[in-house]
């Protein structure tokens, strides 16, 4: 029987970590992710886990210690936000290229500057090319479920890549919601043992990791890393299926909400999906054929699946909670539109940058986007491809 509880997003993630009982957690506090290591260190202090908690002196050292630990053969987890993730940057790439399946909870927060502690996605979006799998979560339940699945995804021998589980700072991390937890033994059985093929502590066959790798082999190693990311799509779906049997909760690469006969639709990530779903319901009540896609897996990017999913629309808006400063819209837009070139070439697609630095996103804001889409669907004309929502100009 599932356990019903009321937890904040951070607490739910910390509980998942307790149930996973990793060998090492190395972390450094930063708002709004601080509670994750805080709750977890209490589990350590109470002997609820066998984990070594390494209270490092910076996020750079957090990821470095995670790399050392995972390379040594230990299952390893951490959490961070914004500038903390930025300080890890160098090591994110090294973790991925060393094929170390570390699981990192990214509690999304605006990246400085100016300094701001509230939610947007500029932190994890900046890390989208670092070679980490990225899962985005709408609410506490998804964050909890995804952290558990992330262990299995990253450690799968066809993948061997680190995984970021991203959820919105404060909105998700600090909001207390009803949640269904799995029993400890079920999580333990689901994640199983970490059994890497090679690791530093395998004394019978010592291994050298992190070599200098020049022209003769570097490219092959990067190609193999890219293959891991390609393979991960199937593994993400397989793990989700197995998790679904255990929990009764279904996960895919993205969630389609009232998309079957939709004419206008938006693509969103994380908590905004919750707000947007109520707008879709209201519009449906009024006879507007509105739909929504909540992207769960951003890396690997579900190119064909997403391209096909929007091919029946008359107009689409991609919502980016970060600005890539490319002067051509946000990062999600760029990837979605690229997929549409192959699968939905004739569907007008526009971009909105919204909610930066925690700017509140109301149902009215989302309704305005659908109104704009309705106009495009009717006229077939796009007056502005790149847009900012809810900003004073």
């Amino acid at each position, binding site marked *: 029987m599932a356990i019903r509880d009321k937890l904040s997003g951070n607490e739910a993630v910390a509980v998942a970590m307790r149930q996973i009982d990793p*060998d090492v957690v190395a972390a450094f506090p930063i708002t709004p992710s601080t509670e994750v290591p805080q709750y977890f260190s209490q589990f350590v202090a109470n002997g609820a886990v066998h984990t070594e908690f*390494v209270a*490092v002196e910076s996020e750079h*050292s957090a990821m470095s210690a995670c790399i*050392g*630990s995972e390379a040594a053969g*230990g299952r390893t987890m951490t959490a961070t936000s914004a500038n903390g993730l930025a300080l890890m940057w160098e090591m994110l790439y090294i973790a991925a290229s060393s094929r170390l399946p570390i699981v990192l909870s990214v509690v999304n927060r605006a990246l400085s500057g100016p300094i701001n502690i509230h939610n947007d996605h500029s932190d994890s979006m900046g890390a989208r090319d670092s070679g980490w799998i990225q899962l985005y979560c709408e609410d506490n339940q998804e964050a909890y479920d995804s952290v558990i699945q992330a262990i299995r995804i990253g450690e799968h021998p066809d993948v061997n890549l680190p995984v970021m589980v991203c959820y919105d700072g404060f909105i998700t991390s600090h909001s207390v919601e009803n949640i269904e937890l799995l029993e400890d033994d079920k999580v333990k059985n689901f994640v199983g043992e970490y059994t890497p093929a090679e690791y530093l*502590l395998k*004394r019978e066959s010592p291994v050298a*990791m992190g070599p200098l790798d020049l022209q003769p082999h570097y490219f092959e190693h990067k190609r193999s890393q890219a293959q891991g990311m390609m393979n991960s799509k199937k593994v993400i779906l397989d793990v989700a299926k197995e998790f679904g049997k255990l929990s009764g909760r279904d996960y895919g690469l993205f969630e389609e909400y009232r998309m079957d006969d939709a004419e206008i639709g938006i693509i969103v990530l994380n908590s905004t999906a919750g707000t947007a779903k109520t707008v879709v319901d209201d519009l449906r009540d009024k006879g507007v054929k509105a739909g929504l896609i909540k992207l769960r897996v951003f890396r690997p990017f579900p190119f064909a699946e997403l391209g096909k999913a929007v091919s029946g629309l008359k107009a689409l808006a991609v919502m980016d909670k970060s600005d890539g400063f490319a002067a051509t819209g946000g990062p999600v837009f760029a990837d979605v539109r690229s997929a549409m070139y192959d699968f939905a070439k004739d569907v007008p697609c526009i971009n909105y940058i919204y909610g930066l630095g925690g700017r509140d996103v109301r149902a009215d804001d989302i309704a305005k986007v659908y109104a704009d889409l309705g106009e495009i669907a009717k006229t077939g004309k796009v007056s502005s491809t790149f847009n900012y929502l809810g900003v004073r100009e």
Partner: protein
Amino acid sequence: MAYNLKESTKKPERLTGGHRMCAGCGAPVVIRTILRAVKEEDHAVIGAATGCLEVSTCLYPFTAWKDSFIHSAFENAGATVSGAEAAYTAMKKTGKVEGDTKFLAFGGDGGTYDIGLQSLSGAMERGHDMVYVCYDNEAYMNTGIQRSSSTPKFADTTTSPAGSVIPGKVQFKKDLTMVMAAHNLPYVAQSAPMTNFKDLYDKAEKAIYTPGPAFLNVMAPCPRGWRYDTPELMDIIKLAVDSCVWPLYEVEEGEYKLTYRPKNKIPVADYMKPQGRFRHLFKSDVGEEMLKDLQKEVDRRWENLLKLCGE
């Protein structure tokens, strides 16, 4: 058993020949001496900061390390090895690993005195059972002899060149061993591979087998950066120690102990003269004043050390 160089060198090498370090480089001599102090039955996890040692000993698909080895980046050998040690502790609890594994991190002075200082300080403060070894060659040699905070005053490097106005590096060398001693660790020592290597071997053995964190700072001259003839490596080290530029001492649980006292303390100039990086001092009119300046600082630090050691 008392230390015997001949016996000690009969142990199987843990850093094999065939690595690509330069002839006359101090670093592999330092590493091999330290690794001889690891018991044959013990496994080691060795980490290295980016630097000469790392790029020359682990070029894919080869490794010169007989033990497990990890390099991840430049500034984080302390943190990386601390993570491996934490995994070991956790996996011991669950019975996933057996036997004794020792944890060592090697970094040059760039990776230790400068960019890796925070990571080193953190790892030592947290009390991981590991040894951090700085092989100190007094500049960023891997990138082509740029000054570090370990570079001695007036040394000519590619970013502190001796010019017509500025005579090489302007600042004195940072005293990292004292910085680490101030961490109040179970064991801190300064050493050099000298004469029969006993000083370094003994300190390595203590560092490796004292539970908790230990720091070794070991002089490892670089023929390219210091500009000496490669066969002169051992002579240069002896001059550094006998001039008290590089005193040999240890700090065990806060107790300072001088492990070598030169019979005749030689002038700093005798140590500097064979090195091309100080050549300009011996050619210039003001060189004598500069040498006096250096001698004064070396004497001041030496006297301070003698006091700490109760000598």
